[in-house]
């Protein structure tokens, strides 16, 4: 497996005429899996995730020239992916003309419809529990629990103070534990 190139080098390739596509493809390959799972945890369905992820990378292609390196590329990409996922869920809510709670219930049903779903297994129960959380708490929990992100970076992505994030993560973990123990 080739060594992952440093973001600075990839950005330089992207900004150089003639190596733009090579640089971009390298960025996609480097972050595709992380972003895919970040989006999938929010929208659940693979096809929806694929649509959102492609939109994210198209936005990256169009906006990368304006990216100022005062934050990490990784954080910037997560921010775009988060916003795209939230927009997708918002549009889904509008199209279905249902309250957001019903969309969350729909996401739980998508989990249950997965061919590998096994209600007895804890990892599946955990996914159902995460879907019960409010959107913001779900995001904080996923970024901390799965992506193992420091609060300082989550703070940059969600534009929220670290203290509020810690409280949010605490509430989310408690709610998930209650769900697992009572279901």
């Amino acid at each position, binding site marked *: 497996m080739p060594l992952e190139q440093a973001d600075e080098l990839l950005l330089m390739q992207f900004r150089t005429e003639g190596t733009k*596509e090579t640089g*971009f*493809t390298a960025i*996609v*390959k480097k972050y*595709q*899996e992380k972003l*895919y*799972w970040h989006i*999938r945890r929010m929208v659940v369905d*693979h096809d929806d995730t*694929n649509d959102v*992820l*492609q939109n994210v*990378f*198209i936005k990256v*292609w169009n906006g990368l020239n304006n990216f100022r390196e005062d934050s990490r590329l990784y954080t910037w990409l997560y921010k775009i992916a988060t916003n795209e996922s939230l927009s997708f869920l918002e549009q889904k809510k509008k199209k279905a003309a249902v309250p957001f709670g019903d969309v969350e219930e729909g996401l739980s049903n998508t989990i249950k419809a*997965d061919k*590998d*779903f096994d209600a007895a*297994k*804890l*990892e*599946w129960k*955990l*996914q159902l529990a995460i879907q019960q959380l409010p959107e913001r708490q779900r995001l904080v929990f996923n970024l*901390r*629990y*799965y992506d*193992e992100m*420091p609060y300082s970076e989550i703070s940059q992505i969600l534009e929220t103070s670290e203290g509020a994030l810690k409280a949010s*993560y*605490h509430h989310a*973990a*408690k709610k*998930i*534990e209650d769900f*697992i*123990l009572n279901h």
Partner: protein
Amino acid sequence: MNRRKEIHEELKDIAPTLAGIDFQYPYRVPTGYFNSLAENIMLRITLENAGSAKEELEIISPLLSSLSKKMPFSTPEGYFDSLTPDIKAVKKGNHEPARVVKMFQPERRFRLAAAAVTIGIIGIAAWLFMREPVADLNASKTDTEVQKELKAKVSEISDSELANFVEANTNITFTDSTSVAEIRGEDVKLMLADIPDRELEEYLHQNSVKEKYN
């Protein structure tokens, strides 16, 4: 302490049950999805930046873009030649204007009738609302004035007419089924049983006094 361990320790304090769950993620991704993702995204970006339909097709399907666009279908001989004069005639204005058929056009008389009915209803309603209440002509007259009028009117009637009126109305007979003669003495006793003797004596005294004067 690495971050994984740090998050695990944090979770152990907040939600110990959650800290004990296997970290494995249960979802699956189609085989080879990530291998072709970058290529698919580049294709989409190129398509979005394609200038013309020809360029777009060259990207989507080089095979399709290389094929001739000549239609294999044929038209009847001279079809386009015979089509031209009609178009010229239309341009010159030698054609009848197309008839405009309105979706709903009620006849004039129905519209007039409807207008008349509406005006009538509004007029009557306005008259009923605006008119002054009819004064009772007799209300302002005194009893003596009314009596005078009646007397004057009765004096206009001839004696023969009055005689006929009286004769016609004396034919009315009272058909009360219970005449005084039919009331038995026992019934009278029963009827008067509840009346105190004092009241009866008073009644007899009053009536006997009146009879004397009558």
